[in-house]
């Protein structure tokens, strides 16, 4: 592990309007390059808000988020190119994260055509070649690039969203509940695809999930969030075998287990 973490999140607070309680409440955490961090917690615990701020899609009310030693929380959009090229996000529901009026190919190559990202070192310049490459990587036929999202199933659409995230060759992949909107039958396929891609591309992963089994399958470190706070962090084994926090124990107890035969 390098001495300087990739991400340094310090005392970050996000308050919406005049809500009584901040969505994210003084959260601090580090993320090293190559790490696979899972963020778990029940809905409303602030995990999505946290990763959106890390991807600079939302702004902290207070606190600091540094990426590669650069403060990102106050940067205007036009100076976020370095972050956008390195950090890409996969959203929960591909039915809403893909523009219904844009072809799949146009959606996937959107980051490559962005004025902020194109011609940036590391971002592929040959849009068409990269499109075919990432579509093949996520198991889609590149010939389908001209189709529209509604012509695909939920699982395929999430593959499209993953292809879009991969297109600019990011270093970090942020996945916000990437399978919870999908049919149970295709969840495993999409999770395995993510695991394969993270391994083959050497990606740093931030995975948000309320499903502990998913986190266990994909991550090596886990942060448990409750009411906007991180109540526990540790390696997956640590947290699983010896949860220190009461809330974590409750969460673990809620995992359905099949009786051993």
């Amino acid at each position, binding site marked *: 592990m390098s001495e300087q973490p990739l991400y340094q999140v310090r005392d970050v607070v996000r308050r919406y309007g005049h809500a009584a309680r901040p969505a994210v409440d003084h959260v601090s955490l580090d993320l090293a390059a190559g790490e696979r961090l899972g963020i778990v917690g029940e809905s409303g615990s602030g995990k999505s808000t946290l990763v959106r701020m890390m991807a600079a899609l939302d702004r902290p009310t207070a606190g600091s988020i540094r990426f590669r030693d650069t403060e990102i929380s106050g940067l205007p959009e036009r100076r976020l190119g370095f972050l956008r090229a390195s950090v*890409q996000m996969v*959203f929960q529901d591909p039915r809403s994260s893909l523009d219904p009026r844009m072809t799949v190919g146009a959606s996937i190559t959107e980051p490559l055509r962005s004025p902020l990202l194109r011609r940036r070192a590391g971002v592929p310049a040959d849009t068409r070649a990269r499109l075919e490459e990432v579509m093949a990587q996520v198991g889609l036929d590149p010939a389908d690039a001209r189709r529209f999202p509604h012509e695909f199933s939920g699982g395929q659409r999430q593959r499209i969203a993953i292809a879009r995230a991969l297109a600019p060759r990011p270093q970090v992949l942020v996945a916000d509940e990437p399978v919870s909107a999908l049919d149970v039958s295709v969840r495993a396929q999409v999770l395995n695809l993510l695991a394969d891609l993270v391994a083959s591309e050497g990606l740093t992963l931030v995975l948000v999930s309320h499903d502990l089994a998913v986190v266990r399958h994909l991550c090596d470190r886990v942060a448990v969030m409750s009411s906007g706070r991180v109540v526990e962090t540790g390696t997956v084994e640590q947290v699983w075998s010896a949860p220190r926090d009461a809330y974590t124990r409750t969460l673990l107890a809620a995992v359905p287990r099949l009786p051993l035969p």
Partner: protein
Amino acid sequence: MKRAALVIGLVLVAGTVLTALLSLAWTPYDPLAVVPANRLMGPGPGHWLGTDGYGIDLLSRIMVGARIAVLVGVVAVAIAALVGVPLGILAGTAAKAERWPRLVADVVMRGNDILYAFPAMLLAILLAAVLGGSTATAMIAIGVANIPPFLRVARAATLQVSVSDFVTAARGAGIGRFGIAVRHVLPNIAPVVAVQASLAFGMSILSEAALSYLGLSTPLPTPTWGRMLNEAQPYAWSDPLLAVWPGLAIGLAVLGFNLLGDGLRDLLDPRLRESVQ
């Protein structure tokens, strides 16, 4: 049932537009030729709708009137949409932004409210007083008066689209505010704008008729539906059909555009809700 309304709307609109186009090439009689011998003829084989107080063929005048109505409608709706939609998108995307873009959006919206509150007819009379009554005056007056509904509709639809994940995803892909407006917002609000355009077209035909009835639109001698109504006034008791024909033309055209607009809305709304193409 709803499909029927859409189809009737389409037929009426197509009828109006085709009549207007046909009038460019052919009318049964010269719509300006005064023939005193033929004054106030009833409908018959020679003149299908009869003739007016100058002996001019009414069908020919209705056809030329359709041309003016459609022309004014097209230009007025274009003015309203070209001004209202971009401003509406601007106001919609800036509504959640910080500081000055939101200030701009607020100013735009308040300006729009003021324009909305200003009576369209008064605006037209004012314009006609300044520019003189002409087809262009009617186009500008009706176009400007129609900006506020376009702006509101575009803003509301933009607000709806702006919260979609695909807009956030586009931001994450490094697409700027302008790129998002053009590539994501505009295509997704287009159906709503199309509905508004159809309804506004109907309204503008009605407004044009009112303006030309008052003599604030297309000058003499070109026949318009509003002017025909005006000219029919002295004969209201003796020859009521003179007013019935242009009234029917106005009514059917407006009805057509309204049915088309409503039908389009019914057709497009469920698909919008599912956000499937």
